[in-house]
């Protein structure tokens, strides 16, 4: 039975939850496919995550391997192909709790960087799992700065082999997933040396474990890097190579080749390579970043209508904690952000599909823009969502701290996304570099990519809002965001120019402006997100209350941003002090409005209880019963603890000195 406090929330929804779910999925048909996949996966006990919170690192790893093996069988049985519509939902239904994700990266890198012959040699074997691959780029001493990698590959003309070495401790490959225990092969990035000359970093396919008994190959030292904040199921590994020889043919050589006599030949454009990197950044946003925030919101909001604490009015029943303004102010902006980022993710995918077509036609013009977009949005969305999940966690008080709430593991997993595939600060600076270039070009009247034409636009110098309702007008707040982005960028560009003109070297000037540059890049991404949310809302069906509630969320997302960054908007007087009070008033009013639909808005995300895996967030709201039942399953309550006989008993019997 559904907890009445949760049931009553669902009776008053102002919109159709089912329709909104279809909007989020991109159509009712996709909702159907997704649900079918989820049902198939969740009904299979091999994929159960029921005891996950009680398992050790070793048990988690083994389960992930078991699932990876089983999911292949399952997909074959059900006739789902690797590139069929079901496959994206499979990973999602497993909540990523599966091994061999790096195996896919291994295969993709061979497909992109390998010659036709190499693809023909390796891909079929990898597809059949005759070998398990990993991708070894990051080293102990180097992550961000790839040119600084220290692993070496020296070409030996006499044997036609590369000799791979890890010359220092800091050159050890460190972090690659699936490499600690599982992988038999890996793509190693190393500095290529021919006849004593260094040609920079290149990829090599290296076998690291025996295909017969899985023992390490001669010259190879590899293992697991030890416990992390999360990803216990993944064997992130280290790898040390001592004079490991591989044939000349095993350098991935689509773009460059070492000929038998040691001649180095470069061919084709490597630009497509950048595109791969950028597409990885975009592809991780949906599953690794936005979904966890949606899950966290679902858990925290459902719990907040079940949890009652203190009284709002004397003599009445204790109030649902979601009725407290402070609780709304924590959770509802995160909910709005989840929707905002869902829509910006759609936008990025459209942009990329368009870009991909151009690139296939050998037109690389959109590459810088795509790269700047993927970097900036990866950074902004991961940072925003990570902090959002943490807010949800802390909004659940003590029970949020229990692993059984599901929130700690959502948090520790999402926060890794701020670092992998590009550390966020570095990425924002890349976006900033692009923006400064465009700003300079736009100021000089030169053409710039469509997403940044606004940089050249002249805008009114004051916000025209007269009362708090004006701030519910999308034009008003979108212009404010645009104005802020232009101001931050132009003042940073001016500062940079000043420093350079005063005789400071370019790179020094750049470093001295990086704090401002990061802020400007964020402002740009924030503006685009607001603008895209507004445009999405305008295009939504005006049926079943969908557009109305989305408009409220869009307003909330925008006004929360202004409220939280008031200084940026007040700085040059674009928004006046009196207007800022109107923003605050409208923002707080919206909290009350959205509060009424909060539960339907998270129901629309359509997560099953199995995928939430939370004692606090289940659909039926039987929070306390679940918490009690789950706790009793804890191994600490089943096993006889040796601590009693060994330590507690002597302690209680006051025999301390005998310990």
């Amino acid at each position, binding site marked *: 039975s559904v907890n009445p406090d949760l049931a009553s929330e669902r009776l008053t929804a102002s919109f159709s939850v089912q329709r909104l779910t279809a909007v989020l999925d991109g159509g009712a048909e996709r909702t159907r496919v997704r649900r079918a996949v989820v049902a198939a996966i969740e009904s299979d006990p091999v994929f159960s995550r029921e005891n996950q*919170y*009680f398992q050790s690192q*070793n048990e988690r*790893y083994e389960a992930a*391997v078991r699932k990876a*093996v089983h999911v292949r069988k399952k997909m074959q049985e059900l006739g789902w192909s690797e590139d069929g519509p079901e496959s994206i939902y499979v990973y999602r239904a497993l909540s990523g709790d599966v091994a061999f994700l790096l195996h896919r990266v291994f295969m993709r890198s061979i497909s992109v960087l390998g010659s036709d012959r190499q693809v023909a040699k390796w891909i079929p074997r990898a597809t*059949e799992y*005759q070998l*398990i691959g990993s991708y070894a780029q990051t080293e102990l001493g180097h*992550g961000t700065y790839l040119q*600084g990698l220290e692993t070496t590959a020296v070409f030996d003309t006499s044997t036609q082999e590369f000799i791979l070495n890890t010359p220092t*401790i800091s050159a*050890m490959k460190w972090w690659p997933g699936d490499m600690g*225990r599982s992988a038999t092969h890996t793509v190693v990035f190393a500095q290529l040396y021919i006849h004593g000359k260094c040609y920079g970093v290149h990829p090599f396919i290296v076998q690291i474990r025996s295909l017969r*008994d*899985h*023992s390490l190959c001669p010259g190879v030292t590899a*293992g*697991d890097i*030890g*416990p992390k904040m999360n990803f216990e199921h993944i064997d992130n590994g*280290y790898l040390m190579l001592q004079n490991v020889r591989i044939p000349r043919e095993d350098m991935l050589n689509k773009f460059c080749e070492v000929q038998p006599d040691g001649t180095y030949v470069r061919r084709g454009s490597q630009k497509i390579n950048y595109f791969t990197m950028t597409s990885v950044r975009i592809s991780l946003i949906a599953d690794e970043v936005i979904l966890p925030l949606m899950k966290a919101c679902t858990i925290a909001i459902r719990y907040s209508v079940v*949890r009652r*604490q*203190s*009284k709002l*009015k004397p003599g009445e029943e*204790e109030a649902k904690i979601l*009725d*407290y303004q402070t*609780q709304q*102010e924590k959770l509802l902006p995160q909910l709005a952000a989840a929707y905002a980022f869902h829509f910006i993710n759609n936008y990025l995918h459209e942009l990329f599909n368009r870009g991909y077509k151009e690139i296939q036609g050998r037109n690389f013009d959109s590459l810088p823009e795509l790269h700047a977009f993927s970097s900036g949005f990866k950074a902004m969305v991961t940072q925003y969502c990570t902090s959002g999940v943490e807010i949800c966690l802390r909004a659940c008080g003590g029970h949020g701290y229990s692993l059984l709430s599901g929130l*700690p593991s959502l948090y520790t997993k999402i*926060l890794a996304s701020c*670092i992998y595939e590009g550390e966020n*600060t570095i990425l924002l*600076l890349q976006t900033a570099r692009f923006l400064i270039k465009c700003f300079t070009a736009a100021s000089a009247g030169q053409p710039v990519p469509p997403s940044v034409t606004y940089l050249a636009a002249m805008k009114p110098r004051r916000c025209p809002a007269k009362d708090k309702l004006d701030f519910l007008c999308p034009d008003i707040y979108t212009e404010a965001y645009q104005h802020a982005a232009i101001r931050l960028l132009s003042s940073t560009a001016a500062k940079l120019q000043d420093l350079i003109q005063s005789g400071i070297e370019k*790179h*020094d000037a750049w*470093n001295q*402006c990086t*704090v401002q540059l990061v802020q400007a890049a964020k402002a740009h991404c924030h503006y685009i997100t607001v603008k895209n949310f507004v445009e999405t809302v305008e295009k939504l069906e005006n049926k079943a209350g969908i557009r109305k509630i989305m408009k409220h969320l869009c307003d909330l997302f925008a006004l929360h941003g202004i409220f939280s960054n*008031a200084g*940026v908007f*007040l*700085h040059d*007087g674009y928004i006046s*002090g009196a207007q800022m009070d109107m923003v605050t008033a409208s923002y707080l009013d919206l909290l009350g409005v959205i509060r009424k639909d909060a539960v339907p808005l998270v129901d629309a995300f359509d997560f099953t209880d199995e995928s939430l895996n939370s004692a606090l967030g289940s659909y039926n709201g039987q929070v306390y019963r679940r918490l*009690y039942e789950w706790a009793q*399953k*804890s*191994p*600490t309550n089943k096993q006889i*603890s040796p601590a009693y006989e060994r*330590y*507690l008993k002597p*302690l*209680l019997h006051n025999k*301390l*000195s005998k310990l």
Partner: protein
Amino acid sequence: AVAMMNADLRRERAAATFQPELLTHILDGGAERTRRRKEIEALVINDPDFQHEDLNFLSRSQRYEQAIRKSSLMVMKLREYGIADPEEIYWFKSFVHRGRPEPLDLHLGMFLPTLLTQATPEQQDRFFMPAWNLEIIGTYAQTEMGHGTHLRGLETTATYDPATQEFILNSPTVTSIKWWPGGLGKTSNHAIVLAQLYTQGQCKGLHAFIVPIRQLGTHEPLPGITVGDIGPKFGYDEMDNGYLKMDNFRIPRENMLMKYAQVEPDGTYVKPVSDKLTYGTMVFIRSLIVGDSARSLSRACTIAIRYSAVRHQSELKPGEPEPQILDYQTQQYKLFPLLATAYAFHFVGAYIKDTYHRISGDIHEGDLSELPELHALTAGLKAFTSWTANTGIEECRMACGGHGYSRCSGIPDIYVTFTPSCTYEGENTVMMLQTARFLVKSYNQVSSGQRVTGMVSYLNDVSRQRIQPQHVAARSDTVRVNDPVSLVEAYKARAARLVEAAAKNLQAELNHRKSKEDAWNRTSVDLVRASEAHCHYVVVKLFTAKLSEISNAAVCAVLTELCLLYALYGISKNAGDFLQAGILTAAQITQVNQRVKELLAIIRPNAVALVDSFDFHDVHLGSVLGRYDGNVYENMFEWAKKSPLNKTQVHESFHRHLKPMQSKL
């Protein structure tokens, strides 16, 4: 062999402009106290009984077992060494458990003190010595599954039965199950249980009862008692937080703690004389949390700053070697304001502790006048410092990139151990609103013509000297961005403005609506902001005041830089408040932002020395990235080799899953 110190760290230390030991003495409260702290630290660290495998590689059960082993030894050795001063006990315990919680925390920190303050002499005779000798191990069972913040809502009942002169304890609902008490799950054999007292058919509110829960000798739960561990948490692996369910469990009348309220044999209830002293305990515990905020953030800063001096990456200048990442402005901007914050919070923690001790003296003489303000202030400061430290620890971890995510960095552990302090001993938002209640009350007093004193005395000026945007020009040249005293004034003006705004919004709501509570709820976001601004002002004020006490010129100079950075960074981050109130002009904000960046460069050469001054021993720090000698990479490798996944060369799952798959496909 003595390992060489990493060359980067050696250079950093040589270039410092001050002696770190002198600053350590200031943090400890004198050279003698530093000496004694290190003496106690050495007792623990050189004791082979307290050494063990890295806890990161142990299961939860194993960690609990290690903790209980060390706790037993700790109690014995404290008595053997004759360490009795509370602060020295705290040091000893924190070195033994390396800053982590332990299963006897509630016994030592709550069960024994509660017996001392709330038990009658007769009860003390029965319980105190056995508890002191650990024949009785107790916990403090207050929080229930359904109630934490709102104590009056607790549902556990204790019904008096005059026929047998017993209380019958019951957990009538699932939500009434006691949930979270530390040491309850596996360790304790007694609990002080808070329950609604029913006698002669009437509910008399919450009272405390001593309840035996496990059989002495076998440690099995007693009939009528269901007790266990609440399962895995984010952190606190060594603590057996527990649940407790009671079904018609009877205890003798004499087990109710009856120093204040009493139930007579016939069931007559005798009311307690009013007891304001519980305020004092809360103030004390919250002051500990402020100190803990400072220490936890200091540990994270130590790790992140040392690692940033050792780590080299990318290029600053084309063609030159890769620079230390601490040379990047963005990295300095992440870490140095946190370093300044850690120092600020140290001084705030020390201030509250001193004030508490001073007021405690007054209380014994019956003067309670300062207590309400201190109580209100510590509620807010507990929330303000723990929120800031919580976020700061995560920023430190992020600043360490991928390696920060590994448990070998030590920061994940600091975070998961610290973050519950945002919730326990008063949920932070609730704490902020308590402070706000005091601020609004003070504001209303001023409005009605009374004067207020203490930290809120700035409110006296609000009604007279209206702070209006049109006064910007007049006020702007009064704020000097290089003068901490002038910045204190700016923070004061911001606090005054936000308290006034919140109080006025509250009044406006009251004019529109009937219910006081509703109006309060509709203003609570404003009220929290006002509280935050007040706390921020107090922190800046206390940090600034500390500067005048520093005699050594070099130390004073570097602390002044940190104080300025703390104050200016806070203005920069909250520029909207200062602009909107007309306290600073846009031009001044630009100047503030610029000055922050200059200070980053000024503090940079002293950064490592400033974290060295925190003086964390490597064992206590528990971090491969933050090691004093900076030999990070080789020790990461050594650490990883001990990972449980590396126990066998070929993992057993190869034979179980991988091999069958490869042969089938």
